[in-house]
Every structure is written in C-alpha cells, then in structure tokens.
C-alpha cells in the first residue's frame, strides 16, 4: 500500500478535519508537524499555490485544500463513508460544507480584529450560527450525518472546539446560554465521539498560543 503523509499544524482546525477523516476510516498515516512561521521546503513544494496546511501526500502525490482531501479519502477508502450515496443528499452535504467555507471565516475575523470590524464579524458569525441552527440542524438526529458523523460534521468541527477558545480570548460570546440549543447539543455530541475526543489539541495550549498570536496580529495591524 502506498504511504499516506499528512502535513499539518496542531493549532489548525483544517488539519484536524483530515486527521479525523483518516482516523474514522482507519487509514494509517505519517503526520508531519509544520511550523507555520517557518514552512518546510517540502510543504512549499507540495502546495506552491497556497503554501498552507493541510496537505495530504499519497504515494508521493500531493492533494491540497482540506475538503478536496476529504472527498479524495472518501473515494479511495470507501469504508465509513463521509458522503451519502444518493446524489441529492450528496449535493445537500456539499452545500453545507461550502456554507461553512464561505461563512466560517467570520469567527476568525472576530479573533483577528477589534472595534467596529470585530463587531461586524460578530454579527456575521451570529448569522451563520443562526442559519446552522434553524436550517442545518433542524430536524436532524445527533449529527448532520444522522446517527453518525459525516463530512458536514467534520467540516464544522472547528465550531465545536476552536470557537470556544476564540470566545474566551476575545470576550466575545457567540453561543449565549439559552440560544442555539441544537448547536450546543451537536457540539457536545461531536466531541463525545471517541475518534474526535482522542484527536483534539489541548485547550490550555490553544488558549496560550492563540492569545499570544492575537496580540501580535493586533499590534501589527
């Protein structure tokens, strides 16, 4: 079997999407930790377009962009499917993945900004969460994928673990106590699943890292 390598970075939710998919499918892989402040020549060679993690290298051939990687994994290793088999349900799942890619950055904008810009980012993020609550999770079972985690759950994993860290560091609360009951339940269910639970970056480490980085970002703005 050809080797599978994953170039990732421990603070990145995008890296974790691929780790979760690999673990779910039981695919053996070699993990290479990248220092994003000093990127390796291999990473730059494998991802010249974006110079980002994650990059999956299978049999020496690179695949970039986390959601492209996930669809590739699903096609090469069909066990524990990430996408449903029905074309309409696949289109629905892909819609939610794209929604997350389009609107997810608003949460990171809260982290990267302050003042008016941050306030706008907060409104955008709340709108995204409201749409997820009212349209995405409405009528669903435990997960976006039904009884089991699927590609949409993995795509939104950042919300389950990274968003709380951003809320803590910035003091901007998104998930207020009585609002978003479905989303809160989903976040809880998601993190209870063993292959997710066993593959999450340490929260204290994240808070320290992201807090320091936010100071740097704001001071150079």
């Amino acid at each position, binding site marked *: 079997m050809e080797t599978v390598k994953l170039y990732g970075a421990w603070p990145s939710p995008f890296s974790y999407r691929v780790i979760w998919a690999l673990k779910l499918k039981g695919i053996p892989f070699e993990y290479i930790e990248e220092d994003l402040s000093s990127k390796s020549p291999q990473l730059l060679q494998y991802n010249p377009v974006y110079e980002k993690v994650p990059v999956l290298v299978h049999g020496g051939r690179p695949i970039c962009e986390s959601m*492209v990687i996930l669809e590739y994994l699903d096609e090469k290793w069909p066990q524990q499917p990430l996408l449903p088999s029905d*074309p*309409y349900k696949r*289109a629905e799942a892909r819609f939610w993945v794209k*929604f997350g890619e389009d609107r997810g950055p608003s949460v990171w904008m809260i982290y990267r900004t302050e003042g008016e810009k941050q306030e706008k980012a907060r409104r955008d993020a709340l709108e995204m969460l409201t749409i997820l609550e009212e*349209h995405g999770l409405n009528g669903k079972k435990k997960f976006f994928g039904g009884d089991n985690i699927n590609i949409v759950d993995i795509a939104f994993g950042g919300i389950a673990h990274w968003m709380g860290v951003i809320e803590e560091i910035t003091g901007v609360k998104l998930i207020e106590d009585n609002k978003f009951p479905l989303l809160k339940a989903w976040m809880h269910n998601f993190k209870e699943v063993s292959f997710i639970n066993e593959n999450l970056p340490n929260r204290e480490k994240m808070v320290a890292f992201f807090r320091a980085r936010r100071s740097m970002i704001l001071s150079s703005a």
Partner: protein
Amino acid sequence: MAETLTLLDYWPSMFGMRCRIALREKDIKFEYQEQDLWSKSPLLLEMNPIYKKIPVLIHNGKPICESLIIVEYIDETWKGKAPLLPSDPYERAQARFWADYVDKKIYEGGRNVWSTTGEDQGEAKKEYIERLKVLEGVLGDKPFFGGDSFGFTDIALIPYYSWFYSYEICANFSIEAECPKLISWAKRCMEKESVSESLPDPEKIYMLLLELKKKAGK
C-alpha cells in the same frame, strides 16, 4: 412520473453558464427561467432561502444550489453520457482543486479589474494576469484542463471568457497578448455547442457592465 428540470439563472452570470454547459454536455432537456436579481421571485427565495442567489437547479421540485455542486450533481445523476469529472480519484481531486481556485481567485480578480481605476486598477490587472498565468501553467500543452476531454475545470473557467472583453476595455489591456495559450484553449472550448450556446455575446455583457457602472455612479 414526468421528470421536471428548471434552471433559475441570470444571463450574464458565469455561475449560471457553468450549469447550462453541464446540462447541454449531457443533452439534458431543461427549462431556463430568467431571474430578475433586483426583484427576486418568490420561487427563487423559496428554493434558495439561505443565499437567495442564482443559479438554482430544481429537479422534480427539489432545489440544488451553488454552481459547482450543481455540476457535480448533474454528473452523478446522468452518468450515461459525457462524464464531466475524471474517473481516477487523484485526477478528480486535481479537478476540484483547480475549480475551487477559479472560485477563489478568478471571480474576485476580474471584478477588481473592472471596478477600480488608476493605480488600483493597475495593481488589479497585474494580479489578475498572474492568476490567469497560473492556470495557463496548469493547462500546459493539453487541449483541455482534463486532458483530452472537456471537463470540470474547463466548465468552471470558460464562462469567464465571455467577460474578458469587458475587462480588457475597462482596463485597457489584452488578455490574449498576456496569456495566448489560455485564449487558444477558450476558443477550442467555444467550438463545442454546449459552450457556444451557453455563453452570451461579450458585447452584450459590456453594455450591461456600462449600465451597472452608471447605476453605481462610477
């Protein structure tokens, strides 16, 4: 039960064009419904409540939104003719990666070219050409991005060809001079009926752009 297929679209939309091309590649009969984006129809709002945008493909009453998702849906539902994605998973990943690159870099890049002036426009032009050259590099000497057959990445990018004329006039440059291989590729695509029937006349797009600019007071 008779199958119904409706495409909610707007004639100059690159995203709509992708869907038209995919349907025509597969010889699928569909009803084209022109939408007024300044006065959105109840049907559009019902079928795409989250984004309220075109294109939307409505298949037997059920909506599919987002152009590349629609193209994949068409490919997966009508498997018999003209596969739009390659069969090899690695090649499929490359096709998806480059179609995504078009979405991330070409749409906004082009908009920056026609909507800015002066120094900003100079910068926008430079950036846009660089991005087109990346795609030219990916194409290489192949007839299409997918190799010998017209496919997913070609479908993602070719609609922009109808807008090149407008960008060139607005910013006073020639895309063909900078990216000759890309323009050869575009002309090759235009020889396909599915493409030539789906792309509007570039002159009409330019007239529309002038109208839109006037409305925006530019």
